[in-house]
């Protein structure tokens, strides 16, 4: 097991445009860290630099304090699971799983023993003599994991390993991976664009956008205390509502005002100076439909079974909220909105940074 330290890491494919810029990141031994972000955000490039498949343009990568920049992938003692599994099509499942050991000169008897153990762990023993093309997606996924596990490597790197599976299998494999990590306690770096995977599996999440790291934190931290508007917008379903607003005094206490909406600002929030232009961030659960309050009109009702996502409009601007499925709202109803001041997020209108 290894800890990973990344400092000042950068990658330019074309001079002047950074795929990854000035990245500093620590991964603790045994930690499950997810790199999350939209496509093209630099997360995959980062993972490939960790693997040694890409050469950094600047900065350092250390495993257990040792710089590994100049080591080949083979020398880094890592295991990687690829998005399309990258199983060797001409080898049987057993040969696939044993390949990393073979390349390290492990003798045949030992290889057999360890591949059997891994197959048992992943419950793929009956598949050992099949060729990859005769396996289902989920089975291929397990074989790819097996090939990574057999090495007992310093670091596991997983590049969107679940994205090729159908929705049901994906949630099943998610649970399996959590269980696997609990059991082997290996350092894992996991790349995904799916926030649900990131939120449910990770010890910590590193959120990327435009080649830059936006925030690293536990799932709770990135959800409840996003570092900036980008993170806040990316995390959470339905997505956070944003409104342009201004801090104004009202009856002595400061409020943030946006058209007919005014939400009191709790005492102790230092970033909210009077007259400042801000972006208001409200998650769906911070908005309640009530008697009275700010007048609004129901625009769309989307029942999901255990709740209903309701889109309302307030003087021409749309907000998304959630209610109980049986609340009986109809499109066109006039309602009132209440806002939970404790769940109010404020961001600088220009920079997008969170205001304390």
């Amino acid at each position: 097991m290894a800890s990973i330290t990344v400092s000042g890491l950068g990658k330019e494919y074309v001079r002047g445009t950074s795929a990854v810029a000035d990245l500093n990141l620590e991964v603790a031994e045994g930690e499950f860290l997810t790199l999350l972000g939209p496509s093209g955000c630099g997360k995959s490039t980062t993972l490939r630099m960790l693997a040694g498949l890409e050469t950094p343009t600047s900065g350092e990568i250390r495993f257990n304090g040792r710089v590994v920049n100049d080591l080949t992938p083979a020398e880094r003692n890592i295991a990687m699971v690829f998005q399309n599994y990258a199983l060797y099509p001409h080898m049987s499942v057993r040969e696939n799983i044993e390949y990393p050991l073979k390349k390290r000169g492990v003798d045949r008897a030992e290889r057999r023993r360890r591949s059997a153990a891994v197959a048992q762990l992943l419950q793929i023993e009956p598949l050992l003599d099949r060729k990859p093309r005769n396996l289902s997606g989920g089975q291929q996924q397990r074989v790819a994991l097996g090939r990574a596990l057999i090495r007992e490597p310093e670091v596991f790197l997983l590049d969107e390993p679940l994205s090729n599976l159908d929705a049901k299998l994906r949630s099943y494999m998610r649970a399996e991976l959590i269980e696997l990590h609990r059991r082997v306690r290996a350092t894992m770096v996991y790349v995904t664009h799916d926030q649900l995977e990131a939120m449910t599996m990770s010890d910590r999440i590193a959120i990327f956008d435009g080649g830059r790291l936006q925030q690293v934190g536990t799932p709770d931290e990135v959800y409840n205390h996003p570092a900036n508007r980008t993170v806040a917008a990316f995390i959470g379903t339905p997505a956070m509502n944003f409104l342009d607003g201004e801090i104004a005094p009202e009856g002595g206490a400061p409020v943030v005002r946006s058209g007919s909406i005014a939400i009191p600002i709790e005492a102790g929030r230092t970033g909210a100076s009077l007259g400042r232009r801000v972006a208001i961030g409200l998650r769906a659960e911070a908005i309640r439909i009530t008697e009275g309050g700010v007048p609004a009109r129901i625009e769309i009702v989307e029942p999901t079974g255990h709740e209903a996502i309701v889109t309302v409009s307030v003087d021409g601007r749309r907000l998304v909220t959630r209610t109980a499925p049986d609340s009986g709202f109809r499109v066109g109803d006039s309602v009132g909105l209440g806002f939970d001041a404790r769940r109010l997020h404020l961001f600088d209108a220009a920079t997008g940074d969170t205001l304390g």
Partner: protein
Amino acid sequence: MRAVVRHGGDLVRQVLTWALVLALSFPLFWLISTALRPDTELFVRPPHLLPRTYTVDNFSKLLFETPFLTYFRNSAIVAISTTAFVIVIAVFAAYSLSRFRGRFSAVVERMILITYLLPSVVIFLPIYLMLSRMGLANSLPGLVVAYTTFALPFAIWLLRSFVDSVPVEIELAAMVDGASRLGAFVDVVLPQLLPGIISTALFTAILSWNEYLYALILTNSDAVKTLPPGVMTLLTSSYHIEWGLLMAASVMMSAPVILAFAFLQKHLTRGFGAGAVKG
């Protein structure tokens, strides 16, 4: 009523299509039919569609009274040598072009495509002079050298498309799993590439087997003639043209090609277009 009309229309279409197909393949039929009939039946008016008596006289005469077998052997030697030589070089070149993209490889790539379209008559004179100076004119090795000029660009181009279709990820996976770059190539790329290599080899062999122009200018004795100029000699050398014999020779020299194509069904489009149509 309408269904009947539509059905009738389909019948007409089927018959017309097959009539066209049969008309277009009539020369093929005539070739075989002529090869199998005795000389006396060649000049009958009206000609018989099928031989009245079947005979293999033409074939036995071809094999025992003409240098046909020598030509055949020469063609085989040249085709196999050219292919073996070209494929080895082309596999590495194609792998390099597919995986290491840079300014150098872009130039090479463009050059290959241009060469693929280059007429032989533009370079055949210097090739002839060069081979004469080296003492390779009128020799089988000389033909192999000359055939490399068109076989190599063809093979590289075709193989490249096969390498392109082997996913890079499995190579990267092999490297992560502990293989060197060349080790990954041998362990996981080469086995994937094998069908492509076999196809390319067959196409290259066919090109060499069929080549006429270089064989015409570079060989002048029966001992080193290949089939194309050799069989043409059979046409021009005899006093009266023995069509039965020539058709037998045609059947025999086509046979290996047809056999090779039976294996290539799947890759025909790729091989013939060689990336030139699809890009």
